[in-house]
């Protein structure tokens, strides 16, 4: 099972980033390469000075969803950033910032958390994606 999993992360809320981290770690455990492409608000969440912050939840979560997420966290669930870090230790996980989003947010590579491996454009992302699925979150 060597086809890469290619994740395009757009949303910057903790629930969607958690879902993405779970997919990343699961694929890494199976030995699949994972390419993560960070755009817009997902890229903002990977800023070194903001990665540990509360990034909120998708609007559909509501107060009940907020409580459910908080309860799981209190029970010891790893944060999405920790899960991503574990996935990188385990397998072949490459996390790239979208160059357009870097311009949009006025970011330099040094502004990003060390989880991010580099900056690339969409063409490089698709070239590396090969025949693997592309998932947009």
């Amino acid at each position: 099972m060597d086809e890469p999993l290619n994740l395009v992360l757009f949303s910057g809320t903790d629930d969607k980033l958690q879902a993405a981290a779970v997919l990343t770690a699961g694929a890494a455990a199976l030995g699949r390469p994972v390419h993560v492409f960070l755009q817009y608000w997902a890229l903002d969440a990977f800023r070194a000075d903001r990665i540990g912050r509360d990034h909120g939840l998708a609007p559909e979560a509501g107060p009940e969803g907020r409580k459910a997420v908080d309860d799981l966290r209190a029970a010891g669930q790893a944060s999405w950033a920790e899960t991503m870090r574990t996935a990188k230790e385990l397998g072949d996980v490459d996390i790239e910032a979208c160059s357009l989003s870097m311009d949009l947010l006025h970011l330099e590579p040094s502004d990003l958390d060390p989880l991010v491996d580099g900056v690339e454009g969409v063409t490089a992302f698709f070239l590396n994606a090969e025949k693997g699925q592309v998932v947009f979150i």
Partner: protein
Amino acid sequence: MTTALIAQKLDARGLNCPMPIVKTAIAIKSLTAGDLLEVLATDPGAVKDFAAWSKSTGNEVVEQSADQGVYRFVIRRK
């Protein structure tokens, strides 16, 4: 029971998906081919996840049991 032959034990009880599998994949790397790893997990997806992981990676689940919500797997490193 193969308890005497187990090279390493991993307690993944209380961990949510996908951490039991992720920790198993990390632990198995430190073993040599043929070594047995025992894993305890409470994640309800564990049975199907360990089956899928085993099929995909070739590390064989040689024993599997469940007792009061705790799943026990013994895995042989490929």
